[in-house]
């Protein structure tokens, strides 16, 4: 990073919110990788665990011994309560002026965090979102059918919503904390439509949104199917966003 950018960096703190459910191993790996790639950056990791039965919270406590309780925060909840509320819960405990949201399953690699930060410092954007669909980005682990539905969904969304971003359902994002707090209160959807609604509402409100390419390694895909009900949910979400944003 350029000299001037490092000076700006000194005043910023990044709160990284990671919602977890049964991510006993992955949470340890993610924390290690975040510390590896964000040396010299002021940050904290907020793990919002929804009562994982596999002992994820015990692992987080071990990580706190290694990295410090001021850098790795555990803010757990009693059971699965949804992603949107997990972010809101994490936000309440975030002491940074920037918030990063990312998945715990290693599909989002912490090595991209510096590029998010750099992009934000260069452009002053309120939101920097990772996109898998541009050159320099990419996906590994999807079969043809999955790519087809992803592409079809994207074309539909671009045609009707004019969102201004290339990857609507991505959930690897950096927000100015004030922007996140403002947008999240007006979002009602769940699941991946939640991510879409976040970015579309941000776009409508005039927030500056920048993109950085990211690679996405899906190791979970084989276990979850993208069936008819997901497609119906998506179309309902699209119509809802079309009419209410």
């Amino acid at each position: 990073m350029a000299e001037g950018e490092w000076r700006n960096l000194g005043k910023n703190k990044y709160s990284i919110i990671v919602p977890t459910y049964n991510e006993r191993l992955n949470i340890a790996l993610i924390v290690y990788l975040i510390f590896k790639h964000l040396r010299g950056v002021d940050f904290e990791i907020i793990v919002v665990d929804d009562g994982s039965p596999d002992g994820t919270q015990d692992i987080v406590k071990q990580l706190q011994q290694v990295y410090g309780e001021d850098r790795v925060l555990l803010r757990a909840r009693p059971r699965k309560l949804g992603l949107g509320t997990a972010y809101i819960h994490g936000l309440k405990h975030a002491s940074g002026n920037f918030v990063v949201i990312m998945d715990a399953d290693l599909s989002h690699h912490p090595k991209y965090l510096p590029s998010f930060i750099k992009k934000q410092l260069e452009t002053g954007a309120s939101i920097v979102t990772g996109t898998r669909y541009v050159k320099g980005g990419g996906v590994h682990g999807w079969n043809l059918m999955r790519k087809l539905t992803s592409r079809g969904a994207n074309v539909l969304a671009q045609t009707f919503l004019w969102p201004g971003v290339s990857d609507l359902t991505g959930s690897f994002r950096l927000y100015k904390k004030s922007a996140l707090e403002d947008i999240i209160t007006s979002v009602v959807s769940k699941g991946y439509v939640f991510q879409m609604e976040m970015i579309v509402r941000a776009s409508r409100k005039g927030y500056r949104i920048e993109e950085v390419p990211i690679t996405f390694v899906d190791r979970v895909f084989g276990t979850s199917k993208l069936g008819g009900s997901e497609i119906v949910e998506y179309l309902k979400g699209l119509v809802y966003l079309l009419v209410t944003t």
Partner: protein
Amino acid sequence: MKHIFKIISLLAAISAFWVGLLQASIIPRTHTWLLPIYLVVSLGCYGLLMVGVGLMQFPTCPQEAVLLQQDIAEAKGFLKDKGVDVGSD
């Protein structure tokens, strides 16, 4: 203004243009009546083309899976030494 109003205005403008064409009779009436159908079909074809092109150009990153495995091994090594339980998955 809300996005839906932008879309409606666009459709209204296109409709007005179409009605204007009908009344002005520059193009034979029979053709003009079919124009909306041509438009919808063209848009549909364009959409399918975009999906197809996007699918062909879909960026993949097989090397990332390999790099990830290396990172995982490195992380496990470090954490095990520090007493973090990295046994199960």
